[in-house]
């Protein structure tokens, strides 16, 4: 009887030890995964986007199992209602979003795109910040200029965005852009 008891106890201890090891490993693996679904915002304007910015956003999204949120920012002229249909802008945005989605899907990154209207690009971005949540924003410093974000816009973004902002330095390969 004592022999059987000892064998049973040894088996129980073995099972408990196995459970402890398995649960520690499982917890370790679980802690490596993101606690919530991450979103990475990639705002852009016009008919091209910096390949550096897109590639950086895709690399981050892939590494963090995050969703990429490419957002086309449309400036609506003052004489039009802000919420009006903008087919001319949509004709630029849709092929760009399609091209970004194609590239993202090729790398296994899920995409949840947006088109946001505002009186200026900054206004559109602020409207987007109001009703969407994301963990990172990726913008390219190469897109500064008349068609994209100005230096002031980037400073504003650093100040206002409730997320980590990644501004990419100008680089030698900045001439590479993605167009639709």
């Amino acid at each position, binding site marked *: 009887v004592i022999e059987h008891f000892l064998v049973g106890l040894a088996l129980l201890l073995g099972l408990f030890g196995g459970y402890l090891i398995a649960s520690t490993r499982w917890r370790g693996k679980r802690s490596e995964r993101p606690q919530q679904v991450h979103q990475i915002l990639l705002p852009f304007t016009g008919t091209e986007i910096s390949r550096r910015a897109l590639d950086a956003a895709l690399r981050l999204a892939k590494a963090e199992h995050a969703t990429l949120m490419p957002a086309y920012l449309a400036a609506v002229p003052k004489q039009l209602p802000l919420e009006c249909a903008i087919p001319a802008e*949509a004709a630029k945005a*849709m092929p760009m979003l399609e091209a970004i989605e194609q590239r993202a899907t090729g790398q296994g990154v899920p995409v949840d795109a947006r088109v946001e209207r505002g009186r200026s690009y900054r206004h559109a971005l602020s409207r987007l910040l109001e009703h969407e949540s994301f963990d990172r924003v990726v913008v390219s410093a190469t897109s500064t200029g008349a068609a994209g974000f100005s230096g002031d816009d980037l400073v504003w973004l650093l100040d206002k965005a409730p997320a980590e902002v990644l501004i990419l330095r100008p680089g030698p390969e900045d001439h590479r852009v993605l167009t639709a």
Partner: protein
Amino acid sequence: MDRGHYKIFLGMAAGVGKTYRMLQEGHAEVAAGRDVAIGYLEPHKRQETSDQARGLEVVSRRKVTYREVEVEEMDLPVLLARRPDLALIDELAHSNPPGLEHEKRFEDIADVLAAGIDVFSTVNVQHLESLNDRVAELTGVRVRETVPDSVLGTADEVVLIDLTPEALVARLRAGKVYPGENIEAALNNFFRIENLAALREVSLRQVAEDVESKRLTLHVPEPLGTREERVAAEVPQAVGERLLALVRPTPSSQRLVRRAWRSAQRLGTDLDLLWVKPPGKPIEGDVERQVTALRQLASVLGATLLIEEHDDLVAAVARVVRERGSTYLMVGESLPRKGLGRLREPLPQRLMKATPAGVDVRIVAHRGGREGSE
């Protein structure tokens, strides 16, 4: 007393020849023995237009002082008293100065028609209220004098005065539209080829829609049966297409919407988006976020997002197709069928059976992982 016959000459921009054509037809009516008078003519100092008006009786204008400036306006009481068979009244979108019978000339025209007098009139497409925003976006120029679209709907005939953008620019350069000193400014602003091409497209579509709506109105069968039956009877007579895309509140639906919008643009037609929501499920959390995103996208594209609560997807779609007169249905790829679901007929086939004959069904493949529409 029968209402007069109303004919509108519609153009994409000033200088295409609307007034000229109206006057030409006025002469033809005189030659046919009718009593024709010009109620109001705005020749814009164009020699060709003034020459064409020669020989037609002109009803005297009245002088009105507005903001200390004396302007000449159509004299509605005199025209009504003159009572010709046909009145030629230029520029129906014109705003009258305060103190006259009506604020707008198209309202004066309504009085003339009500008096049993036929009317020929003119208007440019950017004056139509619903197109004003679109034209402003395309051209950067917004006109202040607008008229409700229903004005075009009240016309018995709408005649499009079409001219290629190149021909209009050539007319402008030749000084046939504006005096010499204004030509360069006009060419650099409103009268750019790309602006004119866009306006021409808008005008052609507007007239096509008008023709289509009149066909539908004229051919409605006896008003018997249910509303669904009557709508179903109308659908095959529609000339234009109308696109309906089935969506779900998921990011993958956006690709379907983009595809559908591109097709709608090519067909020159309206786009409806339909989500058939399972009954009883509240719209909250992630679903709410995605519905908001879809609504936003639809608004940007000028599409209509419809949300129908129904437990039978096919029945709901069939009803909406009939109600909206859809001729084209776009669906996403279906989920892989499991278990007993394999025995069911695939969704596209069920949709084809349930919708009126002639409604095409197109399946849009998902780019990434398999995520279906049912």
